[in-house]
């Protein structure tokens, strides 16, 4: 009996050791293969042409005109990042640290915001605030210019505030409310608590979201092209070089420049976080979603105001899209009509199926990659650590289109002939989503510190035990953030897969792009509306999955009582 039990434990340990070794090898290999290798391919493309070394692209990059490009890029990126993080922080605090009624609605608005397909938002803005727009012109009698760098910043801020909110709130919910409570009990003012306790504890989240958003804005070519009015940044220049001048090498060179800027940002992130090891060993109950009123934020009024404005804007935007889908001519003839759905019904159902197929897969598998990578990152030292960090963060710095192209260059022939398959689309989406789950898991692990693991093991728990009982539950918020963001992102993504998609795997966002680009705005709105509705349904489904374990427990308990 005893002997038997002993061998079971031994076996278990052996299995877990093999498993750990396997993960420790598999994750870096996966990253090398699908992050490093394509990027190297791209790099060689930037200075290796027709079998010869050629640095002309880099010389071109150092020419005069490109100073402007760099300046534009940095200006737009820094201001959008700063504003988006501030807005995200405000929304987070309004939801988790205030007494505003219905504050839960802000959360749904933030999620809804992430769902809005990119092309449609810009059109909605024109319809609402444009020269003949409903709000700005007909209601307020203003005439605003909706093109230029300020418009890029506005759209980027709004679009990225949701990411900031997701990352910051996942860190905030990991903070033990008792710390803030103790500070208050010891007589600190609310301001003092906020500045000396809450904010420093949030710092990893703020910095992590800032670097994510920085890279996100840096790599986004869509918004500058849509509303920039000729104001060009590095990412849009790369896209344009690729699509109009068929200049692969030059686009690759510009991507290298983008990569340089973003890795610089991540170095700054590392330096900032190095001296700020805020340790909070007591991870708060994951279930305590209800806000503790004693921790009211001193700026609740301002936060509430900003969050309300933000939410109103998002909701108006959604209703404008819905109006476009169900009226005869979007923004012009408001009589009810289903003609847009009728003309596109087959295409809608086919592309929707494809999108959901990709999105669910990436949402459920993807975060595990990010989390394991973050765990390995935390556990490893030296070069391996740096390498994992860079490889896991790199995908955000590479413009989607360039990443797609680099995948085509890397995986179009044996032994890895993956182009044309659904698999490569799933992998590229997973890799692009990697930074989200990686970064939030990293931020959480940073708070935990290794002591917790050590303590667990000192008390006799096995490595596997420690991992499943301590680390995994702690990382659930990161998984959730990665899952939700992954699902949404795949539903609305276009740049990364534009070069990998085949007619068989048409996605719904592609169809929006096509409809808007050929001037059929109503049809585009119908697609967009369908997309939003099904993304919401999908998210609800994922939430249900999330709640399922707790539900099972409750049912089991009830059964036991009976």
């Amino acid at each position, binding site marked *: 009996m005893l002997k038997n039990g002993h061998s079971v434990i031994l076996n278990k340990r052996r299995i877990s050791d093999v498993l750990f070794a396997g993960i420790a090898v598999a994750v870096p290999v996966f990253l090398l293969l699908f992050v490093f290798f394509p990027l190297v391919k791209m790099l060689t493309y930037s200075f290796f042409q027709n079998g010869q070394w050629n640095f002309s692209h880099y010389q071109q990059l150092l020419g005069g005109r490109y100073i402007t490009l760099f300046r534009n890029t940095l200006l737009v990126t820094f201001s959008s990042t700063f504003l988006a993080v501030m807005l995200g922080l405000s929304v987070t605090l309004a939801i988790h640290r205030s007494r505003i009624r219905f504050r839960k609605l802000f959360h749904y608005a933030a999620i809804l915001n992430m769902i809005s397909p990119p092309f449609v938002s810009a059109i909605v803005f024109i319809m609402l605030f444009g020269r003949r727009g409903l709000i700005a012109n007909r209601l307020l009698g203003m005439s605003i210019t909706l093109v230029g760098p300020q418009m890029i910043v506005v759209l980027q801020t709004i679009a990225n505030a949701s990411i900031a909110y997701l990352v910051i709130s996942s860190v905030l919910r990991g903070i033990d409310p008792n710390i803030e409570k103790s500070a208050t009990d010891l007589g600190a003012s609310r301001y003092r608590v906020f500045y000396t306790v809450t904010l420093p504890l949030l710092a990893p989240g703020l910095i992590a979201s800032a670097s994510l958003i920085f890279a996100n804005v840096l790599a986004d070519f869509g918004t500058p092209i849509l509303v920039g009015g000729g104001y060009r940044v590095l990412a849009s220049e790369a896209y344009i070089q690729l699509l109009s001048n068929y200049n692969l090498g030059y686009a690759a060179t510009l991507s290298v420049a983008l990569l340089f800027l973003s890795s610089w940002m991540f170095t700054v992130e590392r330096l900032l976080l190095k001296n700020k090891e805020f340790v909070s060993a007591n991870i708060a109950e994951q279930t305590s979603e209800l806000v503790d009123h004693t921790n009211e934020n001193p700026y609740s009024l301002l936060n509430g105001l900003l969050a309300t404005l933000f939410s109103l804007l998002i909701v108006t935007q959604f209703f404008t899209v819905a109006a476009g889908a169900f009226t005869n001519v979007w923004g012009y003839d408001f009589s009810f009509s289903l003609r847009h759905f009728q003309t596109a019904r087959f295409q809608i159902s086919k592309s929707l199926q494809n999108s959901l197929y990709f999105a669910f897969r990436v949402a459920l598998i993807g975060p595990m990659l990010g989390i394991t990578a973050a765990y390995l990152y935390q556990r490893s030292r030296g070069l391996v650590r740096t390498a994992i960090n860079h490889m896991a963060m790199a995908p955000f710095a590479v413009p989607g289109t360039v990443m797609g192209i680099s995948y085509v260059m890397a995986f179009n022939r044996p032994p890895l002939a993956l182009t044309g398959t659904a698999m490569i689309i799933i992998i590229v989406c997973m890799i692009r989503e990697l930074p989200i789950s990686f970064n939030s898991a990293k931020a959480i692990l940073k708070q935990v510190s290794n002591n917790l693991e050590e303590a667990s093991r000192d008390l006799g728990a096995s490595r596997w035990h420690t991992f499943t009982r301590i680390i995994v539950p702690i990382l659930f918020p990161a998984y959730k953030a990665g899952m939700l963001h992954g699902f949404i992102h795949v539903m609305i993504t276009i740049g990364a897969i534009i070069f990998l998609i*085949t007619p068989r795997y048409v996605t719904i966002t592609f169809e929006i792009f096509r409809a808007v680009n050929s001037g059929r705005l109503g049809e585009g709105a119908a697609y967009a509306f369908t997309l939003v509705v099904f993304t919401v349904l999908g998210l609800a489904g994922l939430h249900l999955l999330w709640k399922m374990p707790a539900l099972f427990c409750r049912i089991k308990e009830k059964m036991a009582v009976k």
Partner: protein
Amino acid sequence: MERKSILSILLVLVIIMALFTGCQPAPAEEPTEVSEETPEQPVEAAAEPADEPYTGEPLQIYAAYGGLEEIAQKFESETGIPVEMLSMSSGEVLSRMRAEAGRALGDVWFGGGIDSFMVAAEEGLLHPYQSPEAISIEDRFKDQEGYWTGVSIVLVTFVVNKPLAEELGVDIPRTWESLTDPAYQGEVSMPNPGISGTAYTAIASMIQMRGEVAGWEYLDVLDQNIPYYAERGSEPPQQASLGEVLVGISPDGINSLREGYPVEVVYPEDGTPWWHSPVAIIEGTQNLEAAQKFVDWVLTEEGQAFLAEVSPRPSTRPNVPLPEDVPTLDELNLVDYDFAWAAQERDRIVEEWTQRYTQ
């Protein structure tokens, strides 16, 4: 707490299993769904049904064309060959074909800028095919070696917002010359010719029509009326439809009109720039026979009439019945355009344009 986490892990594992064993995404639509979609186009018994039911892979088509869904269904109902279409600009298709370097991921390339097709043919990315139907098509609309064949004529038009014209109290511009009138200052939207094939065709047409010096002088004056150059070809008609600007220089302006916006489509009377939108077979296709059938079909009189119906453009084949809102080529003053010259000079003209108007 403990039990909960174990359950969660189990759940995640189950999900993973489900994911890897789950079903593939939807393949082609059922052929049976199709016929009801286009009742106004009775499937003539004359349209010979395929000798035997098609058993091959669905035809994969990269397209830059309007009305793709209708075209796919019509073709399938007439030939029994299922079609999967993907909309993509010709620049993207070309970049992608180059990156694939000889591994074809599709069968047919349908519609787009003629220059991309010319470059692709030169680089050996296209498979030549002399369709028997191409004989009826004028020589100027097709490649002599059969690498590509023009399907329809894309016209560069002005999309003019009528309510805005009334509000501003200006006439609707009918010529390129009148477009430079100071009354239209800040009211003309045009894309960057480095990005948009439409804009490049327009400025190359100006230079060809007026000569090098006068052409650039004209563009200098036109520049005064253009607040900024858009970064995508679809922006001008969109801005004009929504009343952000008065005039959008745009291909296929009828689309905005058909969508229902209060616009007038003007075919410039002093020269309408144009190009032919081609169809080609992608080199290395695994489905050559079906691809050839598609090329044949879009060039037949019925196919051409159907294309004009769903994507309002004049046909390349003469005497094809056109919808009422589509002008025939005889009604228009087409620019006498030298495509070879335009392709050769593109880099120089775009460079000069960039120097002049974007610094």
